[in-house]
């Protein structure tokens, strides 16, 4: 609860600081705010609290999710470079304030105990992202991305709310503890049949937000149209918070009803894996490829949600951490290269724009390579262990067909990730040395080293998760 209060206050303070501070100082101040709230989160380690009469819960699981989400926010702020030098068309104080407020929403989504808190947290996160997606007002693609994200997101919220209403009608309680109590004390025959419809509708609403197929149609356009720094935020924070919410709803609350929702989520997982990977292989634009890759990673994480083992929560945490570090680095490198190439090339976000990066920017090229290897799941990186734990879960549940499809799709993934590595190291192109700020370099190197360390010693964090 303390990080929620702290982040809200820091967001308001940020709005006022915009009057006097310069851009770079605003970035440093926001970084300090997020580090302060991470410290407040970690102070509650190994304590269990229920806040305000069973509205929010703080336990080790929620602290871990909160730390990953705030780490993603920290990386986004560190890579943001104070949003450039354009005085008129960018307002850094407002962007940083909305980022902090959306972190509040994400924290609510990972520690809720009442369905109202889930809804309020989801809406805070979503409305903040609608605003940030459209923040580049002169760019038509950013406008289109904002409108599409807004309409699809509100549509999904409608489904989620109808599901919550049906669940409330059948269990007579909005609290997770109340739902579990009422469901365990009623005979299965006397449960109203619209409980199952409610569970599926809630699942559909949440699956929209993490862009599982067949609800993924907004993802490529929105990820491509939004400014790259906010795409980084969307693909790390929104996915992690969404998966925490899906885990709490499907596995914790309705785990006993698994035979009702397992078939639907099973097929959604398989379609997500196939569609995400095969569509990504056809992309020319690196940013769109990363959008489709985020769809495929949602598919991998859904595999362990389907399996519903005791180790599911720690596997989701580990996979989210590995995916966050890798995606942040890859989007950061794409961002600086695209900024350099605008005006020099037709399409600054294609793979061709990355040609020859290694000649004058060896550190950027190395970081990009490590990030793509982690996303592909090559050993010695954190992504490999993430996929390994997910596949172990599925083996323990004796579900073999999704594992075969997942392994095949990982092989397809290697193809399109290696396209990026090849164009960076082996193709020739003219890119001069790109100047990056000190904070950018620190964030880049720490994320890279984190990926490699977690790839070699996964038990470092797996024992805590």
């Amino acid at each position, binding site marked *: 609860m303390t990080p929620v209060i702290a982040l809200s206050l820091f967001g308001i303070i940020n709005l006022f600081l915009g009057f006097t501070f310069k851009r770079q100082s605003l970035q440093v101040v926001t970084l300090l705010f997020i580090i302060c709230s991470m410290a407040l989160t970690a102070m509650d380690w190994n304590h269990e609290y229920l806040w305000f009469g069973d509205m929010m819960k703080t336990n080790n699981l929620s602290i871990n999710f909160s730390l990953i989400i705030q780490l993603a926010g920290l990386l986004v702020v560190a890579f943001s470079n104070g949003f450039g030098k354009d005085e008129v068309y960018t307002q850094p104080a407002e962007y940083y304030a909305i980022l902090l407020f959306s972190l509040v929403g994400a924290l609510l989504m990972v520690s809720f105990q009442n*369905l*109202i808190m889930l*809804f*309020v947290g989801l*809406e805070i996160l979503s*409305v903040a992202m*609608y*605003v940030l997606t*459209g923040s580049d*007002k*002169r760019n*038509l*693609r950013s*406008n*289109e991305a*904002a*409108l*599409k994200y*807004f*309409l699809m997101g*509100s*549509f999904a*919220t*409608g489904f989620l*709310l*109808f599901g*919550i*209403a*049906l669940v*409330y*009608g059948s269990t*007579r*309680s*909005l609290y997770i503890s109340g739902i579990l109590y009422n469901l365990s004390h009623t005979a299965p025959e006397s449960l109203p049949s*619209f409980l199952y419809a409610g569970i599926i509708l809630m699942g559909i609403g949440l699956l929209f937000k993490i862009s599982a197929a067949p609800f993924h149609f907004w993802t490529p*356009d929105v990820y491509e*149209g939004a400014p790259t720094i906010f795409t980084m935020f969307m693909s790390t924070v929104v996915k992690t918070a969404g998966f925490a919410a899906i885990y709490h709803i499907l596995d914790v609350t309705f785990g006993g009803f698994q035979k009702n929702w397992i078939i639907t989520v099973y097929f959604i997982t398989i379609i997500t894996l196939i569609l995400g990977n095969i569509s990504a292989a056809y992309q020319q634009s690196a940013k769109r490829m990363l959008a489709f890759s985020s769809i495929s990673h949602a598919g991998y994480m859904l595999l362990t949600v389907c399996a519903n083992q005791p180790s599911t929560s720690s596997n989701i945490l580990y996979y989210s951490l590995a995916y966050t570090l890798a995606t942040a680095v890859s989007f950061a490198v794409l961002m600086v290269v695209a900024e350099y190439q605008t005006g020099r090339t037709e399409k600054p976000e294609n793979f061709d724009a990355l040609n020859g990066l290694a000649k004058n920017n060896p550190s950027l090229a190395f970081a990009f390579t490590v990030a793509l290897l982690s996303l592909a799941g090559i050993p010695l990186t954190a992504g490999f262990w993430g996929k390994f734990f997910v596949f172990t879960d599925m083996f323990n549940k004796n579900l073999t067909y999704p594992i075969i499809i997942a392994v095949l799709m990982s092989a397809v993934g290697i193809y399109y990730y290696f396209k990026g590595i090849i164009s960076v190291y082996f193709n020739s192109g003219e890119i001069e040395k790109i100047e990056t700020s000190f904070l950018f370099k620190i964030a880049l190197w720490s994320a890279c080293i984190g990926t490699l360390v977690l790839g070699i010693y996964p038990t470092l964090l797996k024992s805590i998760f």
Partner: protein
Amino acid sequence: METKTDRFMQSIPEIIRTIPLTHYILLSSALFAIGVLGVLTRRNALIVFMAIELMLNAVNLLLAAFSSYFSDPAGQIFVFFIMAVAAAEVAVGLAIIVMIYRNIQTIDIGLLNKLRN
């Protein structure tokens, strides 16, 4: 002596006695389906947005019905929160639509795809 208010208060539970709850669920589902129809069929961004508001109102009606039949105020409290969130979303959504209109002088969502390429 039975005043008019007493007779009015006694007639309120008659609704709950005579209309089974399933009627409310059917009405709410029909409104929800009309909202889904509006989102999928129309091309004017404002009408799509109004259809989404219709969906949220269908949910409000269902929650209020459950709340009255169970005498549990939690459903009506949830309706307050849905209304508050819907108001905030309308503000942001209309700002996005106004921003788009300033740039391309139309709010036809089919046209946006062609402009991108």
